[in-house]
């Protein structure tokens, strides 16, 4: 065994950080961890529950991160073991519900984007006496499929809110950019905008490829020079659209649906007019908490009506507050 050399160790100890520092970026990058998460308060004393949250989220969608964070925070407070699963395909989402039933969960929170596919699985759940809450999608079929309440924002309503807001800004000819062809919720948003502003044009882009989003938006702006505004249906897409608008030298104003930290920053900077937030954190939190309430005292929130988590319009005045929470990943 060779003798441990203090000289060598000292050399390594001084050179390694120097090497690391010389390549460091002075701005940006990962911020040092803030001490202690602020999430949750005191945990309740009710017995531990097991609740499944089953969504139709496609992997890699930031929106669902926020829903999940809300659900996790409610679970931490309510002494709940959260089982989160998702599958964008209706049939497989139904299988996830059946798996949850097999796991003898105490409650199921589910998104109803493809209600027909989930019908039978949910019937099994209600037959087994498992309380079901729906969230996000499927407001109109929620009660019919056995959910005692629904947490979500009405897409059409959000669309009309955007239409109204655009009109109050003096804009009349928006382009509504749909990033997934054939998606009912997204179509409803644009339909809502169109209801208020009949000149609205709809543009379809391939959301899986940002370069195509960018170039197709540029093409559309070149083709319709008289469009005065453009609406993205999700934060990452709106940010790409904003870049395309700036690059094309177009005067079209940009508005958005949904939220993330960068988008909130752009609204605060005045580069984006506003966004309509459906407050996804509330959907996750509310759905889990509603099941806990139901288990606690048989409560059913909402009185048979959906509990609306939006639309809430975030414009320049409201953006600073929203930004703070968006950075935490909950707005």
């Amino acid at each position, binding site marked *: 065994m060779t003798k441990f050399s203090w000289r060598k160790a000292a050399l390594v100890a001084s050179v390694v950080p120097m090497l*690391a520092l010389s*390549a*460091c*970026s*002075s*701005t*940006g*990058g*990962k911020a040092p961890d803030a001490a202690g998460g602020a999430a949750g308060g005191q945990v309740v004393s009710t017995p531990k529950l097991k609740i499944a949250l089953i969504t139709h989220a*496609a*992997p*890699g*969608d*930031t929106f*669902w*991160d926020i829903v999940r964070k809300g659900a996790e925070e409610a679970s931490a407070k309510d002494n709940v073991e959260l089982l989160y699963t998702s599958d964008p395909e209706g049939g497989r989402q139904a299988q996830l519900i059946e798996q949850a039933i097999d796991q003898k969960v105490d409650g199921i929170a589910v998104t109803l984007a493809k209600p027909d596919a989930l019908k039978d699985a949910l019937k099994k759940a209600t037959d087994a006496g498992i309380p079901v809450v729906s969230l996000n999608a499927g407001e109109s079929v929620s009660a019919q499929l056995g959910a005692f309440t629904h947490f979500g924002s009405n897409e059409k309503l959000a669309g009309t809110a955007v239409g109204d807001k655009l009109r109050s800004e003096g804009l009349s000819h928006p382009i509504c950019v749909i990033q997934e*062809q054939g998606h009912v919720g997204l179509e409803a948003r644009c339909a809502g905008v169109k209801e208020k502003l009949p000149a609205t044009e709809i*543009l*379809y882009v391939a959301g*899986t*490829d*940002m*370069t*195509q989003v*960018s*170039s*197709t938006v*540029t*093409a*559309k702006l*070149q*083709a*319709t020079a008289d469009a005065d505004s453009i609406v993205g249906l999700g934060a*990452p897409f709106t*940010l*790409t659209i904003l*870049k395309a608008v700036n*690059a*094309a030298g177009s005067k079209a104003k940009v508005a958005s649906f949904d939220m*993330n930290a*960068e988008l909130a920053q752009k609204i605060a900077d005045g580069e984006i007019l506003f966004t309509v937030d459906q407050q996804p954190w509330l959907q996750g939190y509310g759905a889990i908490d509603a099941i806990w309430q139901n288990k606690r005292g048989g409560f059913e929130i909402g009185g048979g009506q959906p509990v609306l988590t939006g639309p809430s319009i975030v414009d320049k005045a409201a953006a600073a507050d929203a930004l703070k929470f968006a950075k935490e*990943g909950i707005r």
Partner: protein
Amino acid sequence: MTQTISKTPPSKTPAPVTDERVAKRNPLQKLLGRPEVGALVGAIVLFVFFASVSQTFIQPNAFATVLYGSSTIGIMAVGVSLLMIGGEFDLSTGVAVISSALTASMFSWYFATNVWIGVILALMVSLAIGFINGWILMKTKLPSFIVTLASFLMLTGLNLGLTRLIGGSVSSPSISAMDGFGSARAVFASSVTIGGVDVKITVFIWFALVAVASWVLLRTKVGNWIFAVGGDANAARAVGVPVKATKIGLFMAVGFCGWILGMHNLFAFDTVQSGEGIGNEFLYIIAAVIGGCLLTGGYGSAVGGAIGAFIFGMANKGIVYAQWNPDWFKFFLGLMLLLATIVNLIVKRRAELK
């Protein structure tokens, strides 16, 4: 194709009795024998068609947009075409692009380094993905369909899993404020103004890659190796072609193209969504096939893949300029794929019979 035309003009003096096997074919016939001719005809038809239905389509600005849309497919189609000529194909290309972008952004963000360090690391990762694909393929002798399908799935999972693990979210954090971002952006995602029209730099990168790939294919030893391993790997091995190295090299070339496009994605949009890229691998293959590359290998050209990408770009953007209902886009794309390949087949057979 200027490269194929013989540089010495045919001599005027009456030729002596020549061997029929080395007889000159007439130039038209020679042109028709080229792999990309079907695609070229298709591209011209499509261009004339959109130019006649939409006034905007032929304006320089709009054309620059079409070229940009084509270039983001075309850059990958260069690598994919070479690979298909070499007799393999790669299903992991779409997500590998995103893997590369995520590597660069997550690494430089997490360690707060200059973004160029992330960019170099991403290049190494992209080449490594290509190498591993090729190496497993050569070791196991499994079809490339299976091997790259597996790497497609694994990369999809890694993209999502690692991004959440490192960044705490499913999209990479914005690195636009970091050192080196400006210069990297100038290299990978800037625009060049030509005669008042902004042309994205990817268009020039695309053209350059096509030129290099064509030169390699038609003028170098390596080009002959690529055609040889795609035509018949065993025969190629028998005459001394390094089959293993050629195929692994081709996969690495695809990785290199993926790196360029990945860096463009990152520096054009600051952040990368970890679920992106799925399905794009088929667009690259479509471009190569429309451009005359055979699925069985041994035949095709880099220019063909470029024309294929251009056809995709024209159809994709042309529908917007023409203000059509985009519901039908995929249908037309499929139809075009079918027609282009049938035309290729017929033209090639005719040319070979004569």
